[in-house]
């Protein structure tokens, strides 16, 4: 039942907005297509503006991952995190989640296949993936496109928020699925 509701919302959300926004504009008497084209013309330049930041982050991330440095950090953290109830299998996910959405998705897929989606580890990984964002990536992209150099306390606030999400996901999973 819930699954059906969620499917329906996901399938309808984007088409509804794409239809509703022009319809609303038309009701207000706008030359909707002209206005659309005028705004859309900014798209190309804005996409290109993101390129330098994407190259910077993705190169650094790739080097860190391929070199084995990421695995080394995971190895160091696995034990202490195990003491507080975080299974070793989800440690890579916790480290990668703030950095890269695609890589995190890959890790979740791997966990679901290996341990099963209805296992404790599978449920925890699913909750973690859904409840946090690719913070480091979003900050670099958003600040980068408007040429902000000094980000002040932004990363600290966002990462503390992520940490809170992780802790909540771990506590809830222990409580619900164990």
């Amino acid at each position, binding site marked *: 039942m819930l699954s059906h509701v969620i499917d329906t919302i996901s399938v309808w959300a984007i088409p509804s907005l794409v239809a509703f926004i022009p319809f609303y504009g038309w009701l207000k008497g706008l030359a909707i297509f002209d206005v659309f084209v005028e705004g859309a013309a900014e798209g190309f330049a804005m996409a290109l503006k993101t390129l330098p930041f*994407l190259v910077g982050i993705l190169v650094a991330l790739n080097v860190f991952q*391929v070199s084995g440095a990421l695995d080394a950090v995971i190895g160091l953290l696995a034990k202490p995190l195990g003491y507080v109830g975080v299974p070793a299998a989800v440690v890579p996910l916790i480290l990668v989640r703030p950095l890269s959405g695609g890589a995190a998705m890959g890790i979740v897929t791997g966990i679901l296949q290996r341990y099963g989606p209805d296992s404790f580890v599978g449920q925890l990984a699913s909750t973690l993936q859904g409840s946090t964002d690719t913070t480091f990536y979003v900050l670099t992209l958003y600040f980068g496109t408007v040429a*902000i150099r000094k980000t002040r306390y932004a990363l600290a606030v966002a990462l503390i928020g992520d940490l809170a999400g992780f802790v909540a996901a771990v506590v809830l999973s222990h409580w*619900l699925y164990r």
Partner: protein
Amino acid sequence: MVNVIWLLLILGGMVVSGLHHSMAPVTAAIIEGTEKAVEVAFGFIGILTLWLGLARIAEQSGLMRALARALAPVFSRLFPGIPDDHPAMGNMVMNMVANILGMGSAATPFGLKAMEELQKLNENKEEASANMITFLAINTATLTLVPATVVALRVAAGSKNPTVIVGPTIIATAFSMAVAIAVDRIFRYFHRDH
């Protein structure tokens, strides 16, 4: 802080590769990283163009202003100093709505546009304004009502109850967002001379 993390990622990778005497994969990783970036940036072009066109209609028809005004009691508290009918407000609202509905592809264009508008209000163009930081704190912790991608992954993996994680996910995100907003308030207070 971003500078340090960036350097640590690259240096850390170099050091570990050096210890393992395998530098060749790192060269490949560097090149692959640039290729991935181009793929992502070019992948943005179509979707950014579409949503920025729609955003312009939403702006000129007054839809954004109406949305911003409806949420003004909450938003004017979260983002002090931004006029209720400023385009920054409307774009931030649209970004959050898109995030909540799980429409990541629609959220990014509105988010980038919101940053542009916030930058217009920013006094020091090189430094993040307090409102930008609050926006990003909320954005990176945003409530998702529909973790559609995760549910789809679970279905694909043959889960008996793929949506069981929806409730806990919403609670965890809500908690993460509450903490992010609270911590942001504290930092904002100590950096108020800016």
